[in-house]
């Protein structure tokens, strides 16, 4: 069926605006004890509006596959989220955050062949790197909180050097992808991002892990915003930026509430074990 889209571009933009306002109201509601639950429902409503809009606004192929994939994702996540014990919620949030970052990275990877100019490729490599860091970093935080690995800070002698090397490789391959648009190299960028995510979270002690989850949450927001730039989708830009900005503030507030600084948490172990075990 090749019918033209049901919604005109103006209506699409207006409905995305409704969704964006819902997300702002959701964050606002979640900040006050009285309205928190309603805020969350408003956010879910906004997401529903956005999903209806995307199906009505463009001529999509593979619809049965897409619906099937959505059913699979929901069927995995919803029961887990409903049944999880209160004490295990932080690691579940970390997991959901990680898969969101992974999704952003995959979307960016697939858009690379369609990127017409270098600026779009810059947004793509940013999404690849940050999405992969968030995915792998969240995986490590999950393992720490679930006690699949030690909750103590993991440090070894060569770690700062190794991180430096990874950083150089990341910037180098990212620059090559921007210059050439090679999909093969983009996969390398993803892989380097995964390594960077693991190395970034290893030195963080168990007590500080919730703050790192919040930081990675902000990272995923930024990755989503960048993927919005790549796709030319204003809603993704707004929603991703909102999460990136509010997540950054929230990370600082959480650290302050524990009497710690964000840089102390992330890099404290490098300076001689000032991170809490």
């Amino acid at each position, binding site marked *: 069926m090749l019918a033209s889209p049901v919604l005109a571009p103006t209506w699409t933009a207006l409905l995305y605006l409704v969704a964006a306002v819902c997300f*702002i109201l*959701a*964050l606002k509601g*979640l*900040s*006050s*004890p009285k309205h*928190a*639950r309603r805020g*969350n429902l408003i*956010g*879910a409503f906004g*997401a529903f509006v956005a*999903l209806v809009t*995307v199906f009505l606004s*463009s*001529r*999509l*192929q*593979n*619809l049965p*596959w*897409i619906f*099937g*994939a*959505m059913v*699979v*994702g929901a069927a*995995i*996540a*919803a029961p*887990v*989220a409903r049944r*999880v014990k*209160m004490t295990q919620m932080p690691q579940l949030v970390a997991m*959901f955050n990680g898969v*969101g970052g*992974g*999704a*952003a990275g995959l*979307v960016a990877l*697939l858009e690379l062949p369609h990127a017409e100019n270098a600026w779009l490729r810059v947004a793509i490599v940013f999404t690849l790197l940050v999405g992969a860091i968030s995915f792998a970093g969240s995986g490590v935080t999950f393992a720490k909180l679930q006690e699949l690995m030690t909750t103590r800070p993991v440090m070894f002698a060569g770690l700062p050097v190794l991180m430096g090397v990874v950083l150089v490789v990341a910037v180098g391959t990212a620059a090559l992808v921007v210059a050439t648009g090679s999909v093969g190299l983009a996969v390398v960028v993803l892989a380097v991002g995964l390594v960077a995510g693991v190395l970034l979270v290893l030195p963080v002690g168990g007590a500080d892990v919730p703050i790192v*989850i*919040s930081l990675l*949450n902000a990272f995923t*927001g930024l990755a*989503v915003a960048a993927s*919005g730039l790549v*796709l030319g*989708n204003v*809603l993704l830009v707004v929603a991703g*930026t*909102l*999460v990136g*900005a*509010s*997540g950054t503030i*929230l990370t600082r*507030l959480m650290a302050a*509430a524990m009497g710690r600084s964000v840089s102390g948490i992330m890099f404290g172990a490098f300076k001689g074990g000032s991170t809490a075990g």
Partner: protein
Amino acid sequence: MDGVQLLTITVLAVFVGFEVVSKVSSILHTPLMSGANAIHGIILVGAITVAGQATDGWVLAVALLAVVLATANLVGGFVVTDRMLEMFRGRKAAGPDAGKDGTR
């Protein structure tokens, strides 16, 4: 939409993001983080767009993987946030592991 317009929107969204959460009370830190986490699950819109334009088998496969992951983020995020907030009902300063008596 041109780059400058997108930049304008992005910068304004940064300020909105800073402002809306600046006065959050500390007991709501975790639910707010979880709610924000659910919101970035909206990357699902991007994943659906890419999957809907895929013509190659492997592009479709990767895009569908992105759809599964993004749906898990979006649906799971909102559900787990709701569960967290359920615990706060009727007791404003409930600790993290006080959830048995669902007073209403």
